[in-house]
């Protein structure tokens, strides 16, 4: 029998952890360097999303291995698992899910506490920068590895004056897993 799924807190307590400050400053330095090298804010947004995607497609393996989560029944469960287990075991913070549309294919993930943005202020020259865009890439990449194509956009951003971070997740397509071999008739 498979071991029961573990809660985000339990997993987080068992992984190796580092000082969040180091992580925050590293991310900040990376964004700053990208701005210096790429110059255009839109390019940086795209690059952060791409980096996030590359990270997400690998992070999902660690997530599945450590959390013992079995297949989610529907997208609603998937979103809950991302918010309660995923964010907790990596970033140490819990997110919440809300604003479901009637079909159950679009929802919002809301983060009130975000270690990426501690002590960060956006200067006027960077209006239009989605500082946390790496997160949208990570979620998109991770979901794609479990056969869900999604579109993720930022609705609220604390660095732009809002009261929380809100990501809008829209399920575009669920690609069922295809077995490479035909069943014997």
């Amino acid at each position: 029998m498979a071991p029961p799924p573990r809660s985000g807190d339990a997993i987080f307590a068992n992984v190796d952890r580092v000082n969040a400050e180091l992580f925050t400053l590293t991310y900040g330095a990376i964004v700053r360097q990208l701005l210096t090298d790429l110059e255009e804010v839109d390019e940086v947004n795209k690059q952060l999303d791409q980096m996030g995607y590359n990270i997400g497609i690998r992070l999902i393996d660690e997530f599945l291995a450590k959390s013992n989560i079995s297949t989610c029944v529907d997208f609603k469960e998937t979103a809950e698992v991302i918010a309660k287990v995923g964010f907790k075991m990596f970033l140490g913070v819990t997110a919440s899910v809300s604003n479901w549309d009637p079909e159950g294919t679009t929802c919002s993930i809301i983060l009130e506490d975000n270690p990426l943005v501690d002590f960060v202020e956006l200067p006027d020259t960077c209006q239009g920068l989605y500082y946390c865009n790496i997160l949208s890439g990570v979620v998109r990449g991770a979901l794609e590895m479990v056969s869900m194509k999604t579109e993720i956009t930022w609705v609220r951003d604390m660095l732009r004056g809002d009261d929380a971070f809100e990501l809008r997740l829209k399920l575009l397509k669920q690609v069922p897993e295809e077995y490479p071999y035909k069943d014997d008739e």
Partner: protein
Amino acid sequence: MGKEVSESCLDILLIETVSSYTNGFYAGKPELVAQAVEAIGYQVGNQLCERYTMERSQFSDHLEAIKFICTDFWIKIFKKQIDTLRTDHKGTFVLRDNRFRWISRVSNSISEDSGATFPSTLPVNFAQSRKMHLYFPCGIIRGALSNLTIPCAVTADISSLPSCVSRLHLLDVSLAWSIVIRYKGLHILLCFRIKHKISQGMLEFKYNWTKVLGQLKLSVLTLSFDKTFL
């Protein structure tokens, strides 16, 4: 204990950054990749050192400052101290960490010379990407020391994994100082040049300025030196 995140977050972020730079916009230009990664490390080292030395009194000399880097500072970042520190007393220091966390899981079996056995789909030479990865901790050390007003050049060597050996070479330059102060909502930039050999006077200089400006209730935003300034 302050806030924490999982270590794999940091690892994977660094790996992805180095990979993006190496395979992406600076593909084929390893010097630029190295520069960028080192600059990121420099920024981090500088800011972390600033935060960790805010409460402390100044260091009496360079050796004390470097010992701080090897103990308290290294512990805060890597949860252990530097294992050995050696110096030739002429400005070169060698720091050895026997189990450097960030490369403790990197394979030792790939040598610089073997390239023929890899499938052609691998986009990057492993040894080169490992080297790029090391520029980040080098930058951290250089940034931290520059915050303590000790300009230096840092190189790292992982020929004997999992230990990492960093070499610091202290530089001797004439410096230009710049201080940015916030006063009544304005940012004021003061700049002046000093022809001064590196000595403990620099640390004292920075410490005294910070104290004086603090007493005048002026908040100092940055106090740094820059050898290319002016």
